[in-house]
């Protein structure tokens, strides 16, 4: 693919970002990270309180990239089959089976949103994780494929009652965990409350230009981005040092206030995690019109691709978010390149 085509796609990507930024205000960083994950073909865990605009954000992206959008709410009585089908009695009085959210859009499914994933049982997690890893599902004696699907799952870190913590192996399947927080700009906060255009979500999402990208071409183009953007030896060494630092931060002089660093990290980032980090960094380099990855590209995605993969001692789990933030910032400050 020529440089011109790379540039054309970049323009489309930036146009999509700009469209989404119009309807979801004050979320430039999460929007850039979601754009990155779309082009890196990685699943995303969204972290944030209720009512901060996660669903609107995803619907706006889905409209921009085209394809099917499906959503399911995580509840304690949700079973795996609820994702695949549901049964009902038809008008003819006979039982009927119809496709569940996973199958409803067929191969055109582009965004699957699992709201409050930590309220669902581990069996449901298992099914979803298989679908995420293999993008396929066996049901009704046949194999169903979702080649263009990206899963966005949401979890609320504040409420812990009646929830099932997502195990580290499951978290590792997500390319990124992106925090969505309420913007702290007074003007934006005021607009969100008083500007009536934000009150009708359907109308708001419809203002996003449709099909800015072609969802069914993203897989192919993602491969092109990954092969076009180089990573120098120095950059590889830097990434490896970052990886080692996530495993033994103390070796790099990284400390977190009020934490015994010898006991903190049970497991650092996984090989899959670091590979996903590099995929995302390459996309970030491409979005910034670079032909090679710089340390700054890694920094842009480091926290969102690594923080949720770290396994801490249980005693520190309750403070995971702040500890991970401080530790990863310390790693960036401690590891030099070149």
């Amino acid at each position, binding site marked *: 693919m020529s440089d011109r085509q790379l540039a054309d796609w970049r323009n489309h990507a930036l146009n999509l970002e700009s469209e989404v930024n119009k309807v979801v205000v004050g979320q430039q960083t999460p929007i850039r990270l979601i754009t990155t994950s779309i082009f890196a073909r990685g699943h995303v865990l969204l972290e944030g309180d209720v009512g901060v605009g996660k669903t609107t954000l995803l619907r706006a992206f889905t409209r921009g990239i085209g394809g099917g959008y499906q959503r399911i709410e995580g509840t304690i009585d949700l079973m795996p089959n609820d994702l695949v089908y549901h049964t009902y009695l038809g008008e003819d009085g006979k039982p009927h089976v119809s496709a569940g959210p996973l199958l409803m859009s067929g191969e055109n499914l582009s965004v699957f949103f699992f709201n409050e994933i930590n309220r669902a049982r581990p069996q449901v997690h298992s099914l979803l994780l298989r679908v995420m890893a293999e993008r396929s599902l066996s049901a009704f004696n046949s194999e169903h494929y979702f080649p263009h699907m990206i899963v966005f799952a949401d979890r609320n870190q504040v409420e812990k009652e009646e929830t099932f913590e997502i195990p580290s192996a499951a978290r590792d399947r997500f390319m990124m965990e992106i925090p969505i927080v309420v913007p702290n700009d007074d003007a934006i906060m005021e607009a969100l409350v008083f500007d009536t255009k934000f009150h009708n979500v359907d109308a708001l999402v419809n203002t996003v230009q449709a099909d800015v990208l072609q969802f069914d071409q993203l897989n192919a183009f993602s491969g092109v981005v990954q092969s076009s953007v180089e990573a*120098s030896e120095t950059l590889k060494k830097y990434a490896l040092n970052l990886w080692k630092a996530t495993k033994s931060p103390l070796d790099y002089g990284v400390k977190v206030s009020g934490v015994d660093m010898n006991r903190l990290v049970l497991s650092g980032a996984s090989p899959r995690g670091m590979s996903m980090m590099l995929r995302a960094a390459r996309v970030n380099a491409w979005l910034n019109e670079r*032909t*090679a990855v*710089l340390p*700054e590209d890694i*920094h842009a995605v480091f926290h969102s691709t690594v923080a949720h993969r770290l396994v801490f001692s249980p005693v520190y789990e309750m403070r995971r978010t702040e500890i991970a933030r401080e530790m990863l910032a310390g790693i960036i*400050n401690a590891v030099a390149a*070149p």
Partner: protein
Amino acid sequence: MKKLIRLVYIALLVNLAPQTAFAIDSQNLPDVPDGIVSISTIDPVRLVGYTVGDIIEREVTLTIKAPYKLIETSLPITGYEKRYKGQVIGIELKSVSHTKKENKNSSTFNIKLAYQIFTNNVVAKNAALGPEYLNLINTKNSQDLVKYRIPSLDIAISPIAIFGQVKIENNMSPLRGPLLLSNVKENKALKISIGFLAISLLGLLYILGQHAWLPRMGGTFAKTYRALGKLPATHEGLKQAVSKVHASLNSSANMSVFSNNVTLFIAQKPNFAPMADEIKLFFSLSRQVYFEPNSAHQVGNNPQQWLKSFARRCRDCERGLTPETPNQASGK
């Protein structure tokens, strides 16, 4: 009633009689034996030029060995007019105070005497403070009373105004040293000038110096600047140079500095603020050398020379100096 008055009169006479009997003229007593009293005095530095109204102070320290002891009532009396050959000399003891320290084998008296001049003359005349006589008693033999003489101090009393035409050389007191011109002002100016020159020289050496013998001289950029001059003018040399400058930036910031946290670095190290634009140029060079060979940098055709001058200007910032502009540094 008359009887009573007579009785009171007799009682008064009996009480006063012993005191009058002990009134002794010090000068008639024998001198204290040698070695019993040692004396030290603190006299005024100036012994001439006194005139009416001046107060002159002396401090006398006496150490009196046992068994002799000073009869404190024999200390000079304030207000007593000094006489010489029966004539009032116009010097009066204005105040006297003393402190006493007793030891097992001796006692020490510190006596402060202040004399006031009440005389004057049309020409300079000699005068003396003292002498003063003190009485001592042998504590083992109350009949053994002796005197001790505090030597006098010669001074010269000067007229308030010169009377008639005086040739000053003939009138100079031998007690006064030669008149000297004051060179205090010139000495002070000389010392300030030497100090200023020394500081200037140190400043010059600090700016031009290569070695760490003053505070902040051995900074990381000073070392890097020296090291850059020794690197070969090859691509490998350029890589090493960029790496060394990176290390210096990191060391200065105490964290890894990248193009996306230069603002934070400058906020922490405001000395480097004049280098903000050049630091960005440095990162464009680093990007080309280490990460993206296809990218372009804007540091010119001789990146190693540019790096050297960049490191020098960073060294100036490190030392708290204002860095030269790139043109000054390259001598243009």
